[in-house]
């Protein structure tokens, strides 16, 4: 295939311009974070802003809470989604279409439509301000998407894989973990990264379900911090960097894997 040099140059210009647009807010927040704090005159990168924000906003504990929530949500949601996706993707049973639409429905329900009774019902059980109040609703959301995703992956696998296993006398659970799961590992990895990202970045659910500070996750910590230091753009930006960095690092480390997983996985839907 050949593309004329003129067109090629134009392509690079368009892609580069748009990449700069994508990077522009990120560069802004980094420069702001390293700029002088309120009332500081000297220039030069102020790396200690990050340390100051870390200490003053107690982001250590907040990041730990975010991590614990994610470690509870992602593995459970993942295993339950694989089991359910396996049933939908490879088995015939009465009511499977209706049940599948039930799961699809969950992907469309905005968090706003569940958060009000969740708060009042959890409060009646004395469960607000616990990890469960934050993790369980997010688990349900991730299961809706995860089931949908895993069903697509298992359906796209060659039927003779299962037939061969059935002939060998492998039971259905063995077939799932020994025959079906290994080739699906890239798409399982993709959906795990997605679930991790969503859980880490979730804002409304911890905002409402943890009215005290007991389970204030990292994004919520940023919002509170912003309220306290409204005028100090440098500190707020530094706090923003603290929260975004872990997830950006995960993404950059796994991007090759993740983006190709998205490209292939999305094509199977």
């Amino acid at each position, binding site marked *: 295939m050949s*593309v004329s040099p003129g067109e090629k140059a134009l392509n690079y210009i*368009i892609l580069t311009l748009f990449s700069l647009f*994508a990077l522009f807010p990120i560069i802004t927040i980094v420069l702001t974070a390293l700029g002088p704090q309120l009332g500081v005159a000297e220039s030069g990168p102020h790396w200690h802003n990050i340390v100051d924000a870390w200490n003053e906003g107690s982001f250590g504990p907040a990041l730990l809470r975010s991590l614990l929530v994610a470690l509870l949500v992602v593995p459970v949601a993942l295993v*339950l989604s694989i089991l359910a996706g396996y049933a939908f993707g*490879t088995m015939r049973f009465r009511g499977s279409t209706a049940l599948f639409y039930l799961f699809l429905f969950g992907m469309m*329900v905005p968090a*706003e439509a569940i958060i009000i009774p969740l708060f009042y019902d959890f409060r009646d059980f004395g469960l607000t301000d616990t990890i469960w109040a934050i993790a369980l609703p997010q688990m349900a959301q991730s299961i809706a998407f995860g089931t949908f995703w895993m069903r697509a992956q298992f359906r796209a696998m060659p039927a003779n894989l299962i037939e061969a296993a059935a002939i060998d006398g492998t039971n259905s659970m063995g077939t799932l973990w020994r025959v079906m799961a290994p080739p699906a590992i890239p798409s399982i990895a993709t959906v795990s990264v997605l679930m991790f990202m969503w859980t880490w970045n979730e*804002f409304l659910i911890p905002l409402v379900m943890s009215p005290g500070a007991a389970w204030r996750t990292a994004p919520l910590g940023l919002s509170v911090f912003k309220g306290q230091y409204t005028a100090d753009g440098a500190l707020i*930006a530094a706090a923003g960097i603290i929260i975004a960095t872990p997830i950006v690092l995960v993404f950059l480390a796994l991007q090759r894997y993740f983006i190709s997983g998205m490209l292939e996985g999305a094509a199977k839907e």
Partner: protein
Amino acid sequence: MKNRKGRERPSAVVRSGVTPYLYLLPALLVYGAFLLYPVARTAQFSLYDWPGFGPSTFVGFDNYLALLDDGRFLAAIGNALYLILFYSILPLVVGLVLAAILRRGQVRGMGVYRVLIFLPQVIALVVVAVAWRQIYTPRGTLNQMLGLIGVESDIGWLGEPNLALTAVGIIGFWLETGLVMLLLLAGMNRIPNDLYEASRLDGAGPIREFFAITLPAVKGEISTALVLTIIAALKTFDLIYMTTSGGPGSATTVPAYEVYNRAFQLKQIGSASALAIVLTVLVFIINVFVSRIGEERRVAGR
């Protein structure tokens, strides 16, 4: 939803009986208890007048009827529809161009561009809000850049009633374009190279090639991208909460923000629940509508 019609579901495990249901049960329990049941409870709450404590009064559909001439609610719906332009339509147009370039253009460093353009999707919306506030403040990056080209401006872009919603919309465009591009690229990667080879032998330029080959092949992905981004536009909450709190006045309020504000600030649980149900129904209708269009076109195109 793209079903491959006429394709049989793998049928090797025809073991009838309870096995499939046992696999579904754990997921269904968690999903039912913490998603389906709360939705039903929200629908129930929407029929009552309740300040969050004490006794509640059954009011039938009064909360819904009250929304009909509720200025803030109507403003929120109007704003959400306007945001769809920035969250869905613009990213679709730009995403198509970017994906087509990446598919056809033999671009070196394609992986780097993909990562950079997708990066906004990864960052927490609260952090995105902090970054864009810094851009939009009176002494922020945007006004500084305008100063460089000789335009003096000290506008607070998020504080102007006429500009604020567009300013939020641009954040949405920045957020969603990478996702749309990646989805479209997934579809375009399935187009066999021979098709492009053939069209180039015929002397087709990039524009003709795009409309003759690329666009028809990604109709399904277009409808998926529209569904995802329209939902994102309709459930925008974090961004509004962190940038404008719906203001100035009701200039940037959206349904999701109104639900939160009514339920947890104003303690109008009934009204908030009715609004949440309306929002869900709206998302549902748009979803069904857009995926129908996608599927019909796919069938018609064959």
